[in-house]
């Protein structure tokens, strides 16, 4: 009965995996499995007319993936993946990409994603910059002595600070990454602006049995980098950053 209606796809699991899909997905529709080739796409119906995305739909997408992830290996689809029909899900995804999808399932089994973000605490890092760079400290004194007349000196001071931060950023990111990569299987870093406060933003793929080790490493790393660098981490998450399909020629 759903054959010709458009479907929203959350992700792919191995068929035969015992999953109870969440009852409420995007647009409040119940999720169901579409199977072929030993694979199952987790999907739900979407209205044929224009669908306006709401905040709760974003959460429904993530919640569905997380619920599947608790039960089995899941290959997440990007948010907003809609195909025209169940038939298309089989033809364009499960059948056309069967080999790749099975390989991805093998690669990601027993692994989880941890999203780590490291950023400078502005005041703490600037204190270190002033303390370690005599040139910055001198520029700061000049500016303070000049008061309102210090426009160009201000720019010069800020430029010195940004330059010092940019130089430090790469070293800090490398040191942090080396520690975390030592307990991770793979990593996908995101670009970071030089001279900004963000130091590192990376998704790590970690074996489930290594999660405690990763956590301990993160804890000791963060304790050692305080107070200049603050850490944030989410996970274990479904491996959204570690699945991709070859682009069709």
């Amino acid at each position, binding site marked *: 009965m759903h054959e010709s209606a*458009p479907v929203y796809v959350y992700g792919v699991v191995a068929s035969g995996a015992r999953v109870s899909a969440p009852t409420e997905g995007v647009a409040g529709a119940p999720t169901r499995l579409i199977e072929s080739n030993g694979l199952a796409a987790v999907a739900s119906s979407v209205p044929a*007319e*224009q669908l*306006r*995305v709401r905040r*709760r739909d*974003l*959460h429904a997408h*993530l919640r569905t993936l997380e619920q599947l992830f608790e039960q089995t290996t899941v290959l*997440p689809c*990007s*948010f*907003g*993946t*809609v*195909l025209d029909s169940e038939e*298309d899900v089989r033809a*364009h*995804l499960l059948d056309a990409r069967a080999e790749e999808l099975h390989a991805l399932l093998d690669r990601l089994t027993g692994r989880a994603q941890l*999203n780590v973000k490291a950023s400078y605490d*502005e*005041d703490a890092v*600037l204190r270190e910059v*002033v303390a370690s760079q005599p040139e*910055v400290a001198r520029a700061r004194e000049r*500016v*303070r002595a000049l*008061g309102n007349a*210090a426009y160009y000196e*201000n*720019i010069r*001071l*800020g430029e010195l*600070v*940004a330059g010092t*931060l940019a130089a430090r950023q790469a070293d800090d990111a490398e040191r942090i990454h080396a520690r975390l990569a030592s307990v991770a299987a793979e990593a996908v870093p995101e*670009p*970071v*602006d030089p*001279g*900004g406060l*963000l130091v590192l933003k990376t998704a790590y793929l970690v074996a489930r049995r290594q*999660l*405690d080790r*990763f*956590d301990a490493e993160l*804890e000791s790393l*963060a*304790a050692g980098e*305080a107070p200049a660098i603050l*850490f*944030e*981490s*989410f*996970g*274990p*998450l479904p491996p*959204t950053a570690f699945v*991709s399909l070859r682009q*069709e020629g």
Partner: protein
Amino acid sequence: MAIATRGTASNYLQRAPSPSGLADVLDVILDKGLVIDAYIRVSVIGIEVLTIDARIVIASVDTYLRFAEAVNRLDLAQTEVAGLKELREGGDGSKRKTEGVIEGAKEKMTPGGDREKEKAS
């Protein structure tokens, strides 16, 4: 999973099993995951999530002024409070433009509405 339930009391490390803020949720599910070629782009009917990359050119005068202001704001020796105040008042109006942007944070929004509207849904 032990890691999912363990809270962190420290302020240098914030851990959560799952993101809840809009920007963090988008970070995990938008432009990440399986993308089924060009086919999908055609099929994403009405689900077009706008990404406003609020990143600005970082090597700008605004940024330098912001850093200078922050460095001056540092209460290194607990002195010169008057000079600090002067600087602030005489400061540039442009610094606000770069605030919150410097970390390279991506501002992403859903179509047809702002964050406030989305919050209500």
